[in-house]
């Protein structure tokens, strides 16, 4: 799972009003190189919750992202590269996602988060 997906996911356990962001507990992760596409990053920037991305990046040991970001920073090549690396090149292999409100753990196995809910959580 890439951090892009982590940034979109919210917990939908019954009764949870704000299931975002899921806390990322990463045990194992890998990096795969992907071609940088500035257009995509600009397009996605408005949809990304920056704080959650920066937080998740720190959870996988990547602290190069600034705490705050705004659209003017997209002109910087250096910023784009860091943004790209955090968003698309880090794959979390093992670990868990934890719902911020209910504390429910969604385990990540072999890079696939298990988001299945139990019957009493629907």
């Amino acid at each position, binding site marked *: *799972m890439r951090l892009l997906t982590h940034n979109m996911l919210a917990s939908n356990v019954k009764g949870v009003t704000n299931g975002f962001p899921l806390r990322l507990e990463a045990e194992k992760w890998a990096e795969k190189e992907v071609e940088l596409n500035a257009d995509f990053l600009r397009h996605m920037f408005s949809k990304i919750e920056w704080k959650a991305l920066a937080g998740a990046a720190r959870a996988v040991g990547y602290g190069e992202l600034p705490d705050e970001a705004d659209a003017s920073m997209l002109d910087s090549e250096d910023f784009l590269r860091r943004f790209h690396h955090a968003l698309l090149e880090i794959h979390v292999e093992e670990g868990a996602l934890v719902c911020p409100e209910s504390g429910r753990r969604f385990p990540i196995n072999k890079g696939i988060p298990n988001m299945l809910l139990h019957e009493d959580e629907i």
Partner: protein
Amino acid sequence: MPRPELQAPPDIFYNEAEARKYTTSSRIIEIQARISQRALELLALPNDGVPRLLLDIGCGSGLSGETLSENGHHWIGYDISPSMLDVAMEREVDGDLLLADMGQGLGLRPGVVDGAISISAVQWLCYADKSSHEPRMRLKAFFGSLYRCLARGARAVLQLYAENMDQSEMIMTYAMRAGFAGGIVVDWPHSSKARKAYLVLTCGPPSAQTSLPKGKGEDGEMCSEDEESDDENQTVGIYERNRPRKKLKINKNGKGRGWVFKKKEQMRKKGYNVPPDTKYTARKRKAHF
């Protein structure tokens, strides 16, 4: 072959053996690729070369996702079958995979996704596989969460095999209730094999952009698949018991006298012993009542 939906729940039906078919059968691969290409076409993403973030609901082994990747898009795949996802992992697909049940809602932030496709998956929602399953609630949860996570004006193209009219109507009703505009596009409506129904849904109020595209082959154009398949090489051709028979041509007045004389003449020429034509030949019987 009976419908897979009637055999077992999706997480059981798509076991390792079934999942393996999706990597080894070139026929399945080709069909899946063709359907997903068409779904992507129906999504009508703006043609500006910018990659988009798409959803693939019921991604299975990632065959449909591969088409999305080939077109440069990023995608997130949902599936309920761990075996299928394992195969997808083996194939090293480019998208991210989630083990999730679409009937429980997609669990995404609002307005983040640029489009969604789903290949032969949504009809599974119409079956209750567990006592806690209530198809209507599951359809509602699915379409509600899909509507929320799509950006304004984004489309969702769901290819599905509905068992009957009631089912497709039910799916359609819940899509409309969630707020979607759109309808069903049918490709190759006259072909039994190549017929594919796509539910094309648009987020937001109806406008000029939400008008439905036309299905392929609606005006009697032949599908390439039909032309390719030659019946001579097929050993078994009939799957359905209630396949319509060729209707006998019966007109109201029967064949008529002229036809009988003609036939008798033909038989005489062949040398058969045929009774002579008289005024009684092919005479109409009296109405007795």
